[in-house]
């Protein structure tokens, strides 16, 4: 078990990029700049207010941060120097840590699949990454999540694009790996301990 969490805002502040929420003046420039704000359960501005109010479950299980494109438009425009992009990443990390990441979009599964391949090979290439994503979707499907089946069908429609890329020598089928995977594993194991 992780340590018992007392204040949600404090927990967010403990991740780099999260600590700036106290400076927010709720002006809404971030929400107005965000290309995806309309798809989010709560806009970036609202999300900051909710974090400060300690609405832990609502925030962490929302889809908001998973629709962040990491385009940093909010970050360069914020008049208070807050980095909402980094805050979104911090919230994603917390949602994963507490197993609250939404299943209404498969973005968390895509990200996890990417990390799975990275930690195994040291590098990430499209083909093994997409196979891993497929496998992770299948596991989810077995746990009766209907979205997973939908996404598996949608992925099949990407095959023509993949084949064309492969035909032009733009996809590597053979997984590329770093040489010193043991060194990378030692680093990651220490970080995890």
């Amino acid at each position: 078990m992780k340590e018992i969490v007392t204040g949600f805002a404090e927990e967010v502040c403990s991740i780099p990029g999260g600590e700036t929420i106290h400076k927010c003046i709720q002006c809404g420039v971030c929400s107005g700049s965000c290309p995806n704000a309309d798809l989010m359960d709560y806009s970036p501005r609202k999300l900051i207010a909710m974090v400060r109010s300690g609405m832990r479950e609502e925030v962490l299980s929302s889809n908001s941060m998973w629709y962040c494109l990491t385009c940093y438009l909010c970050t360069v425009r914020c008049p208070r120097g807050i980095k909402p992009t980094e805050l979104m990443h911090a919230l994603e990390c917390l949602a994963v840590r507490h197993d609250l990441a939404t299943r209404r979009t498969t973005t968390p599964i895509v990200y996890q699949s990417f990390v799975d391949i990275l930690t195994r090979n040291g590098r990430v290439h499209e083909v093994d990454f997409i196979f891993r994503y497929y496998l992770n979707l299948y596991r989810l499907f077995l746990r009766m999540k209907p979205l997973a089946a939908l996404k598996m069908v949608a992925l099949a429609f990407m095959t023509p694009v993949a084949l064309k890329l492969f035909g032009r020598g733009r996809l590597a089928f053979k997984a590329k790996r770093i040489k010193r995977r043991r060194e990378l594993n030692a680093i990651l194991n220490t970080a995890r301990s």
Partner: protein
Amino acid sequence: MRSYALFPGCSGDADTMYYRSAQAVCPLLDIELIEIEDWNCCGATPYISINNLEATCVAARNLALAQKTGLDLVTSCSCCYVIQNQTDSHLREYPELREKVSEALAAGGLQYQGGVRVRHLLEILVNDVGYEAISSKVKKGLEGLKVACYYGCLVVRPKLGFDDPEFPQSLDRLMESLGAEPTPFHLKSRCCGGALILPEEGLVQGLIHKLLENALAGGAECIVTVCPLCHTNLDAYQAKVNRRFKTNYHLPVLYLPQLMGLAFGIDSGSLDLEKLMISPKKVLESFY
């Protein structure tokens, strides 16, 4: 000769078009790119969204390897550029994080003292080489070629200081120094959707559609870009966007060094132009 520690990034490793054309162009500008030995994936957006500490460790390994070379780290990928930069600044700003990361790196026999400069290919071309030097190498100027300069997000944001984060100019000036004509392109630093193409393809297709529409409205014949993610989205998904939005875009999307190579008179074969999904043949024929 200026030497840099090259970080190709995974996309430069699999799809060699960008990497090979950069390697063809750089020697002509007295730039030597020495690949960092056994570099690993920077973690990109996915890792910082799953586990911040582990993501920082993974990227810090690259910084430690780059530090051994004593050179500035240069990457051609905008995403690697931001991640490696952000890792360096986070290690400086958060002592607690630095301590944990140092301990982890030590377990792998590495250490990072801080201070490696992380730079983007576009930035060294503009700041270290300069427009005049580039222009002096031009053999076959791209006269009359109308180019939409697409920066995307991460080469200019967050503000790393070398160009304006919303209305950048460097790539436009660079195109002018090759003889080309940069076209008005208001969305030049707006997001292409990036990695969300996989989980949210419909949404990203909409963003790509807007970009292509805007580039075309400015009179562009082709698009030039400096980011592999932007390139894949705009090039490989253009046909799908056409089907979905009933449009008929046929805008070739080229990497910056490919256009530079053409202007420098490098044989088009070593610039991998045939690997592009949207063939640039019609538009660039007179420059081959």
